[in-house]
């Protein structure tokens, strides 16, 4: 077996047992990433320091020091998470030269448990997009067919793992940005419960919805990674104080007696037939394994996208007001024609620094928050959000886990939907409600389309019940036969 076919747990075991050195691992993956990145555009930056980091891991191991469960695992981190002394761009021109003086908690925790930083991955600008096409640093391509989008916004992280440039990547999910690209690229993607993972050092898009999570080759890796990155952090006041259980040691694929809810509203018109086939097939697999399947109702599914976009863009318009050209980031050139007012100083810098989708969302959010429209849009969306959360809480009185599709449509061609933002937004129909409700969601590869694209299945659980997701996903993983499938481009 080639080294790169291992998952993160496997790599760490090899390094810990000294079967292979961390330097050897880092060298192998860095070379792979350098070779493949030109084809796929997964990374904005490759970290040459990764070899030195790996050397330190080897030194510690040779001295008998326990370096942690991610010993020598090369990790790709979405370029939305701050990395001390390493450029962090959010895929935006406005942060093109930004070098953070500190690291995100997630990054610190990965490194504290033995992981080494392979690089920073491509994304939609400020995580605003579902196709990775809004990045200021070029498109990222789906390894299963390079003319197609990898999904987004964590497209680069999904591609890096799917093409075995690294066994573990970190993404963020505000409305589906981990689960959707995970599904499109054939990797496991977890959006944890809101508050499970610290947002400290993660460049904010919509603060009440943003959550970072792992993108991996296997379910056990996702469980392990959540143990490492999750848990209380005083530097994020919305981070929960609930301690993280040992998920990876408690995975049980026993399905007997488990109640799985299938929301009727997830299978209405607009759902691609091949995606439906994969979900129905997984239902059969779980039924055979002893799970009890039941239809449930989530009638507000229909308004989740509207509710999400009104709230997310409102929060974004506020969060992104910090990019003003004063303390950090881009400043427009005023040498030839000086700004006459402070407003003009801000406006020229911001208009030059932000891309089209970011401007569109800032305008939508500013409108939803503005006097005369606030009650009808921002306040109303907040009220509907409560109803959506309560609807999930009620359904979880009847079942343990909810299962359904991740997306309504298959990966589309690069450029195909760029001019139709509404169509792009509507593809988030099954993912946004988990962010609104704050519940955890996971996408696990469960089948292939005739065209050769992987299809993921979405699992949802009550707040802080990620263990249930890992259990059911492991059962699907074992039965679906998707493990170890490699896209041709990377062979």
């Amino acid at each position, binding site marked *: 077996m080639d080294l790169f076919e291992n998952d993160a747990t496997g790599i760490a075991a090899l390094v810990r047992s000294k079967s292979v050195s961390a330097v050897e691992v880092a060298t192998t993956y860095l070379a792979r990433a350098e070779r493949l990145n030109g084809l796929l555009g997964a990374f904005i930056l490759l970290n040459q320091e990764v070899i030195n980091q790996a050397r330190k891991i080897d030194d510690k191991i040779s001295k008998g020091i326990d370096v942690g469960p991610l010993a020598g695992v090369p990790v790709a981190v979405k370029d939305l998470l701050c990395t001390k002394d390493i450029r962090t761009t959010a895929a935006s021109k406005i942060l093109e030269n930004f*070098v953070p*003086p500190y690291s995100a908690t997630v990054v610190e925790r990965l490194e504290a448990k033995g992981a080494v930083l392979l690089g920073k991955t491509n994304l939609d600008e400020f995580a605003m997009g579902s196709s990775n096409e809004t990045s200021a640093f070029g498109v990222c391509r789906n390894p299963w067919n390079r003319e197609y989008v990898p999904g987004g916004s964590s497209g680069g992280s999904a591609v890096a793992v799917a093409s075995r440039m690294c066994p573990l990547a970190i993404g963020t999910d505000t409305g589906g940005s981990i689960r959707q690209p995970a599904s499109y690229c054939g990797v496991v993607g977890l959006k944890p*419960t*809101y*508050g499970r993972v610290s947002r400290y050092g993660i460049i904010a898009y919509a603060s*009440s919805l943003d959550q970072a999570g792992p993108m991996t080759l296997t379910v056990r890796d996702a469980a392990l990674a959540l143990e490492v990155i999750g848990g209380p952090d*005083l530097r994020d*006041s*919305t981070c929960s*104080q609930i301690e993280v259980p040992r998920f990876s040691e408690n995975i049980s694929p026993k399905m007997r007696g488990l109640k799985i809810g299938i929301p009727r509203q997830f299978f209405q018109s607009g759902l691609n037939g091949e995606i439906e086939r994969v979900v129905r097939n997984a239902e059969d697999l779980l039924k055979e394994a002893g799970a009890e399947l039941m239809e449930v109702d989530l009638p507000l599914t*229909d*308004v989740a*996208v*509207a509710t999400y*976009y*009104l709230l997310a863009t409102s929060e974004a*318009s506020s969060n992104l*007001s910090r990019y003003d*050209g*004063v*303390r*950090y980031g881009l*400043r427009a050139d*005023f040498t030839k024609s*000086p700004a006459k007012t402070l*407003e*003009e*100083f*801000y*406006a020229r810098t*911001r*208009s030059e620094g*932000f891309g*089209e989708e970011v*401007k*569109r969302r*800032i*305008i*939508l959010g*500013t*409108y939803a928050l*503005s006097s005369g429209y606030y009650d*009808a849009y921002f306040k*109303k*969306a*907040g*009220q*509907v*959000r*409560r109803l959506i*959360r309560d609807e999930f809480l009620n359904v979880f009185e009847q079942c343990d886990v909810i299962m359904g599709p991740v997306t309504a449509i298959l990966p589309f061609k690069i450029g195909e939907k760029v001019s139709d*933002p*509404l169509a792009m*937004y*509507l593809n988030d129909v099954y993912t946004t409600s988990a*962010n*609104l*409700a*704050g519940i955890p969601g996971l996408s696990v590869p469960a089948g292939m389309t005739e065209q050769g694209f992987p299809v993921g299945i979405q699992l949802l659980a009550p*707040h802080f019940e990620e263990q249930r997701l890992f259990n059911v996903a492991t059962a699907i993983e074992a039965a679906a036969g998707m493990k170890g499938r490699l896209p041709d481009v990377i062979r």
Partner: protein
Amino acid sequence: MISREIIESAARLARLKLTEAEVVHFSGQLAAVMEAFAKISKINTDGIEPLVTPTDLSQRLRDDRVEPWSSVDQALAQSPERSGNLFKVPPVI
């Protein structure tokens, strides 16, 4: 319905300077978006408190204590222009 006046007013509030082409482009696109989003008005939300954060969190307080931070120079180095320990901006006021 989103008119060009609304786009221009929101852009002004958001400190964005749009080109004429962008104004036209955005008003068309956002008109379609808002038309699709209008359906939330049909949901009955009488007496419902808006949900601002999805999990039940209580406010945590930490001690108000000064902690040394060693990266002042590094932070200032991120500024487009600095003067000693100050951020420098062009004369705009």
